[in-house]
């Protein structure tokens, strides 16, 4: 296959075009669910898997270029496939394969966008993300970037008859465009006076310190807005619940990583001449985002909002690692810089799989019960065993538990942090290692949040009688979930083969390289065989062997029967769904501990109320402190401008005449 189809870049280009073609076929019969669901989405999944395979095979090869004469006359599109873009293509292809498979069974004919149109938007979204990864000039990049934003906007608002969803989409589009503006300006700075906007020209440009810093901060704002870095995160918890679940999975699992790719591309490839300590800015912002995201996730009662806040946490961790790699690179510590960068790439891959898995799991629950509110779920492990057990994999992975994948990237990041005291900057060498404590705190809180999420949704008693009618996911949905769960397990067990591959990305970017010959396939030893190591297959094997051995011993020595009985209630009568903890109750300790972080509105009942009611509303302080005043100013500014907007043609002619006179006066 590879021989007949030419170079890998051409193959990937062909596959991306196939995605667009698949979408276009959907437009032929937009109302037909059969065509879109049974044929096109599975085909899209196959395309995704093919992209992942092609990109993975060619990960370690030298960069490949192509010039496509499309677009404006003198502005052809430059494309380039290198190790960094190949890594993210693997992520895009592999994660989207699972999501598309799930989507094949998920989308129904409803009141929203017709399935065929949805299929088009969906595949255009996928293809545009692929083109972002391949783009090698600012023009191609921005076109693909904006296509990505717009197509995802239409996907988010597919239930556009609901006002709340339209508002969420509007907020998303607004912040996406502010971000795009920042990225555009960043490219404007990066070209460094050559006025050529190919990435090659940017690599060759020499920026002075101030301009380099400006470009970096613009990139941080632009890509940070897309990734959901605090304080530009506000769209995430609104847009993710609004979108259909496969789209939330795609946005959270894949699109946020495309933003990370952009940041990595600028920080490690295009931008030169920036002192390493600028990396402290993303470290600080990242750590804050991580803590902020996970603390707010703990307080959520809507399962998709909870996952959205957890995405903010993970994006924070990614930015932390990215900044750490910059600091180490600046401090001439290439090996550790490579380690931090590999941790970022690994975590990006991990998060793509586990967060997609969780979002799809919530999608199945949503389909089957029609509920997103944690307060009305519960006990679904009995009714939906497939979804429950597959989601458990994602839950354990995202909580950073060994031997699953979340632990591997956390481990790599912590190992990198343990070298932070060697950087040659005063004070930084003391403060930076404390970041490890912050990462550990965030990891532990993630465990808390995930116990809450899983325990409230899948365990315990059903909180509503209607949940007894819940049904398990269909066959294709299960296949999609299983694919992603398998990815989590594989990434968890085989880091020793994946880390060296990601190491080539670090070395191809000139960041540094990990020492060669790390050890056998089952032993992860990124800094050489004599140093730190972690062997997940052995580790997992030992734990599983321990479980089986214990079962065997118990089976051999224990001969008593197992009886089923109603649960112990201290004699207080039968249990109902209302006697267990609610989602609010489970998050209460975190809310108590981090009280100043939340803008809370609480109404407590008095002992004399006839119908006592307790209600609590959790608000985002950043929204109230930053966005509401900002919106107010914009409104007031618009009101002032509106004075000039009379709506009468004679007034406008007068403006034109006045302007003309003014200009003539200036010229003469």
């Amino acid at each position: 296959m590879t021989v007949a189809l030419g170079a890998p870049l051409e193959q990937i280009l062909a596959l991306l075009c196939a995605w667009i073609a698949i979408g276009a076929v959907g437009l032929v019969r937009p109302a037909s669910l059969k065509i879109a669901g049974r044929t096109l989405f599975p085909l899209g999944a196959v395309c995704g898997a093919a992209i992942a395979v092609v990109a993975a095979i060619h990960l370690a090869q030298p960069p490949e270029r192509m010039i496509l004469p499309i677009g404006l006359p003198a502005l052809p599109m430059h494309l380039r496939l290198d190790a960094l873009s190949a890594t993210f293509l693997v992520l895009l292809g592999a994660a989207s394969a699972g999501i598309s498979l799930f989507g094949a069974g998920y989308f129904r004919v409803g009141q929203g966008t017709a399935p065929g149109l949805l299929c088009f938007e969906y595949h255009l979204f996928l293809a545009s993300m692929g083109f972002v990864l391949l783009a090698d000039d600012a023009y191609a990049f921005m076109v693909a970037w904006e296509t990505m934003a717009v197509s995802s906007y239409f996907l988010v608002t597919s239930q556009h008859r609901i006002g709340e969803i339209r508002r969420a989409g509007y907020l998303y589009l607004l912040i996406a465009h502010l971000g795009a503006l920042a990225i555009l300006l960043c490219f404007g700075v990066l070209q460094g006076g050559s006025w050529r906007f190919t990435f090659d020209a940017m690599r060759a440009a020499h920026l002075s310190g101030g301009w380099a810093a400006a470009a970096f901060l613009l990139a941080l704002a632009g890509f940070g807005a897309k990734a959901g870095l605090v304080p530009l995160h506000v769209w995430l918890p609104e847009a993710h619940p609004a979108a259909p679940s496969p789209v939330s999975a795609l946005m959270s699992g894949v699109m946020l990583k495309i933003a990370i790719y952009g940041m990595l591309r600028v920080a490690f490839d295009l931008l030169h001449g920036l002192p390493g300590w600028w990396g402290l800015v993303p470290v600080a912002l990242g750590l804050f985002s991580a803590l902020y995201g996970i603390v707010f996730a703990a307080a959520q009662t809507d399962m998709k909002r909870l996952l959205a806040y957890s995405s903010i946490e993970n994006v924070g961790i990614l930015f932390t690692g990215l900044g750490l790699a910059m600091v180490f690179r600046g401090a001439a510590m290439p090996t550790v810089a490579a380690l931090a960068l590999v941790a970022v790439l690994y975590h990006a891959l991990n998060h793509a799989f586990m967060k997609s898995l969780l979002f799809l799991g919530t999608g199945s629950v949503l389909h089957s019960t029609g509920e997103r509110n944690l307060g009305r779920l519960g006990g679904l492990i009995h009714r939906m065993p497939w979804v429950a057990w597959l989601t458990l994999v994602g839950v354990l992975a995202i909580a950073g538990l060994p031997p699953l994948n979340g632990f591997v990237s956390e481990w790599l990041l912590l190992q990198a942090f343990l070298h932070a005291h060697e950087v040659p900057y005063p004070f930084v060498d003391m403060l930076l290692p404390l970041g490890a404590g912050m990462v550990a705190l965030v990891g532990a809180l993630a465990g808390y949040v995930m116990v809450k999420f899983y325990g409230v949704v899948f365990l315990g008693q059903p909180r509503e009688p209607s949940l007894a009618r819940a049904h398990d996911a269909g066959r294709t949905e299960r296949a999609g979930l299983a694919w992603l769960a398998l990815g989590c397990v594989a990434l968890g067990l085989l880091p020793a083969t994946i880390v060296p591959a990601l190491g080539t990305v670090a070395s191809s970017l000139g960041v540094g390289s990990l020492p060669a010959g790390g050890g056998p396939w089952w032993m992860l030893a990124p800094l050489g065989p004599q140093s730190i190591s972690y062997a997940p297959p052995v580790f997992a094997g030992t734990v599983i062997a321990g479980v089986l051995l214990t079962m065997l011993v118990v089976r051999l020595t224990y001969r008593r029967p197992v009886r089923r009985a109603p649960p112990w209630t201290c004699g207080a009568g039968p249990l109902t769904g209302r006697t267990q903890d609610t989602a609010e109750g489970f998050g209460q300790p975190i809310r108590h501990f981090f009280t100043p972080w939340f803008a809370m509105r609480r109404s407590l009942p008095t002992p004399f109320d006839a119908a006592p009611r307790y209600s609590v509303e959790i608000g985002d302080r950043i929204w109230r402190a930053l966005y509401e005043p900002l919106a107010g100013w914009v409104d007031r500014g618009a009101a002032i401008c509106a004075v000039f907007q009379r709506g009468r043609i004679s007034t406008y002619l007068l403006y034109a005449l006045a302007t003309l006179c003014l200009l003539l006066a200036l010229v003469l």
Partner: protein
Amino acid sequence: MRPIDWLTQVLEVVAALAVAPLFQGWVNQCRAWLQNRRAPPLWQTYRAIRKLFHKDAVIATNASPLFRVAPYVVFATMLTAAAVIPSMGTRLPFSPAADAIALVGLFATARMFLALAAMDVGTPFGTLGARREMMVGFLAEPALLMVIFVAALISSTTALPAISERLATGPLVLSPSLAFTGVAFTMVLLAENGRLPIDNPATHLELTMIHEAMLLEYSARHLALMEFASALKLMNYACIGFALFVPWGTATSAAGPFALAAAIPALAVKLVVAGAALALIETASAKLRVFRAPEFLATAFLFAVLGMLVHLLLGA
């Protein structure tokens, strides 16, 4: 790896299995003496486990398979943890497979399964216990990691046997960073093992209990495994403490084959002293309100952070 290293490895796991209930019994005995009570026999935990193994298992009607698997998972993780911790020798064949961070991950796995199993039946106590356990965990886990990081910074590795060996072969001085982290570690140990002042292992008083609340639905063999696992956990924590703060007496890699023979009584002495000290701390402290627990643990976390700062400032 020499055959003696494999022997050490096996011996450590077997010893942990055999001694963990006795260690718990010893702590309970010391507590009883300090409180002027008649002490239960040393093997009381064994008796309890034996008793539970002779009972019918009763499981709630709506319990899922997760509920039945959890005791085995918790027990196996604690057993694996015992294999990672260098309680007798520092040349362990299993140690390259899991470092100290993975060890903390193991404890987190056990905690998560315990909490999920507690939420499975949906009793008020179960969810209450799970919530409180996670509340304790979210501060205790990073504090433990910070303690380990300080030791890792001193010895520039996160492999626990290497840390222990580096600390054992260093000069016999009390480095200030380790003093701070020692306090932090003790506080984490108390909280993580359901000891006073966070939790009282001897009570079934609804408003205060954490660990017992989570186990309320378990019976017979499942309960036995959970009780055994919590005894193992206490033993594991004690051994981590020995490895970091009193590493002397273990068989280091330079030592000859007879060092192992000396390591066994050394471990016994350490356990006896540690058990007595634990009982003394528990007897001298009062139970905190549950809402004060995060403050207690935040203090532990800050002590560990201080330890790290002191290490970075003084290099010691």
